[in-house]
């Protein structure tokens, strides 16, 4: 068999290009419509259909768990996946392509915001329906969204700025604890902070402030790392930030006020899906705005050649510190969300394991790319859930995958790609 440069055989390549050609004219709107239909289908007939196929209930994560747990049911799980997800999405996306293209073109006459919000609304509807099937899905989905925000914020440093920072779990811990203290102290009767200071019903309105407060605390922590380590380039930041992570962890462990190693629990559960979704989307939007401006591109200039950046009027030191604080802020916000989804935090969560996880997401997905961070965070966190039945083998398979990606795509799956909303939602033209 003849092999091409990326290891695919020529006939496989032909098939994939045929599939791509078949769907080339489908705009994002069409895909979203297809996914919405699939999710609706599952919502209404998923469980009876699964029973018909011999499954106990509808597979929660695309049938992976069932396949790994009970190999006898593999055919049922695959059939379910194909008939409930693959087929409806493909057929509806393809059939609606023409009308959706027309709609997408019409939407572009209005400000970009309108079209963008419609797409986001559809996406939210899909996620909402999908996660409504079970509490487990809702949990996984929220953790995945939080992982996206965390990954993107780390990508700012490790990808866009090209430094190697290890302190993100520390920033996340600062954000998680700060926002927890904020909400517990103000709105809950807590054994550490006494009776609630404000009525409980006001809480959800103050939740954004709690998140921002968490982010700001994380940013202040980041300043402690940034000032000594940005005088020079190289490995200093990696070492100092690693030290910072451990300092934060042992600091919290020894701080009886927030529960020490036992952790802090009973946070109000305000981080429901709409809140998490909105915060993560807002975070992606702001970070993407930043990295596409000349101020943000200055990070790339600093990474690729700092001396040239300096000679071209870029204030490199200020650029680096700003970006570092900015990244830490979003890590803190992600931490705040995390604490209010899990409704319990302990210092052990924010250790080396978390660091490995988020670094894996960044490097798996792709450096210097918003798409990459989304793909990396989603695939690693979903894989982690899907491969759960394998127990110990999970920790062999995921790193192995990471190694393979590093061999064939050293900068990650989708690296150095600009996230252009307009390009993403525009109607697709016919090829040729």
């Amino acid at each position: 068999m003849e092999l091409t440069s990326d290891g695919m055989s020529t006939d496989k390549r032909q098939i994939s290009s045929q599939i791509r050609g078949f769907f080339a004219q489908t705009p994002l709107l069409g895909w979203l419509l297809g996914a919405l239909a699939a999710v609706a289908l599952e919502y209404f007939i998923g469980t009876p259909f699964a029973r018909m196929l011999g499954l106990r209930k509808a597979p929660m994560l695309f049938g992976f768990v069932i396949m790994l747990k009970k190999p006898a049911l593999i055919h049922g799980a695959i059939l379910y996946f194909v008939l409930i997800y693959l087929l409806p999405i493909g057929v509806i996306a393809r059939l609606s392509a023409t009308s959706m293209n027309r709609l997408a073109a019409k939407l572009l006459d209005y400000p970009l915001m309108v079209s963008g919000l419609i797409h986001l609304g559809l996406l939210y509807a899909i996620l909402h329906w999908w996660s409504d099937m079970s509490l487990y899905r809702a949990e996984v989905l929220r953790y995945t969204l939080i992982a996206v925000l965390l990954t993107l914020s780390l990508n700012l440093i490790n990808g866009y700025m090209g430094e190697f920072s290890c302190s993100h779990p520390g920033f996340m811990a600062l954000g998680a604890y700060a926002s927890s203290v904020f909400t517990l102290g103000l709105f809950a009767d807590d054994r550490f902070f006494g009776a609630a200071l404000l009525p409980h019903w006001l809480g959800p309105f103050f939740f954004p402030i709690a998140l921002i407060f968490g982010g700001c605390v994380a940013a202040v922590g980041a300043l402690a790392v940034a000032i000594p380590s940005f005088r020079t380039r190289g490995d200093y930041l990696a070492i100092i930030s690693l030290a910072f992570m451990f300092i934060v962890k042992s600091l919290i462990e020894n701080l009886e006020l927030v529960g020490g190693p036992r952790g802090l629990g009973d946070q109000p559960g305000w981080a429901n899906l709409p809140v998490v979704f909105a915060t993560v989307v807002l975070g992606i939007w702001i970070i993407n705005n930043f990295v596409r401006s000349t101020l943000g591109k200055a990070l790339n200039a600093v990474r690729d050649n700092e001396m040239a950046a300096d000679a071209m009027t870029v204030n490199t030191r200020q650029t680096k510190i700003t970006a570092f604080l900015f990244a830490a802020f979003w890590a803190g916000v992600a931490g705040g969300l995390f604490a209010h989804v899990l409704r319990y935090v302990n210092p052990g969560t924010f250790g080396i394991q978390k660091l490995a996880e988020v670094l894996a997401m960044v490097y798996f997905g792709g450096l210097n790319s918003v798409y990459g961070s989304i793909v990396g965070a989603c695939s690693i966190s979903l894989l982690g859930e899907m491969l759960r039945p394998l127990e110990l083998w999970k920790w062999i398979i995921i790193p192995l995958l990471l190694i393979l990606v590093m061999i064939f795509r050293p900068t990650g799956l989708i690296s150095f790609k600009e996230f252009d909303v307009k390009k993403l939602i525009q109607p697709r033209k016919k090829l040729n």
Partner: protein
Amino acid sequence: MPLLQIDKMTHYFGGLRAVYNYGLEINPGQIRGLIGPNGAGKTTIFNLITGIYQPTEGTISLEGNKLNGCSPHEIASMGIGRTFQNMLLWRHMTVLEHVKMARYSRLTYGLIGAFFGTAKRHKEEAESEEKAYYLLKMMGVDQFADQIVINLAYGAQRRVEMARALAMEPKVLFLDEPTAGMNPEELVQMMDIIRKIHGELGLAIFLIEHRMKVVMELCQRIQTLVFGEVIAEGTPEEIQSNPSVIDAYLGKEMVE
């Protein structure tokens, strides 16, 4: 008053005297050249003036403002643009992004604009894009605007670097061996470009060069640097016939 004035500049790397008692005056619109054998300290002088190194002694001033102690980006924003001998381009960035980046210090929209995409940001980014296209057209590389810079041919990369230096609207342009590694054809094109930017933008230019043809044809006054000291200064004709310059380049004739 001269545009750029340097008085008695001396620099030591540890115990090594790299530059000694260097003086220079550049008037508006002048093209000055600096020649000298390898290791004479030419690039060190550039790095001293642009703030990458701080001189051990001596003063540097641009339009009467002292540059000593300023950081490289401050000096750059005050009006000294430069190119590098080995072209320090940003390997993951497109040509257009390169040129826009040099307008960094002219952007006033700040972090709020960067985060939220305000109208002011769009206006300023559009302005700097327009300016960037103008310069890229002038250099004849506007057709590559959206390409990643390392995919370009060598000569085109040199032009991008030149456009980038011009985008910061400098008062003096420092060119560090702009024709290094070029074939004769590219050399002639590069000389035309230097003449063009001198003519159209009326810039003062300070040029380091190895190729005599370039220096002799372009520069109004030339300095010759040997072991960090200026041994001769004058018009191209004077330099060409100066015996100590010939000695420095070719060595002394031994008389038995």
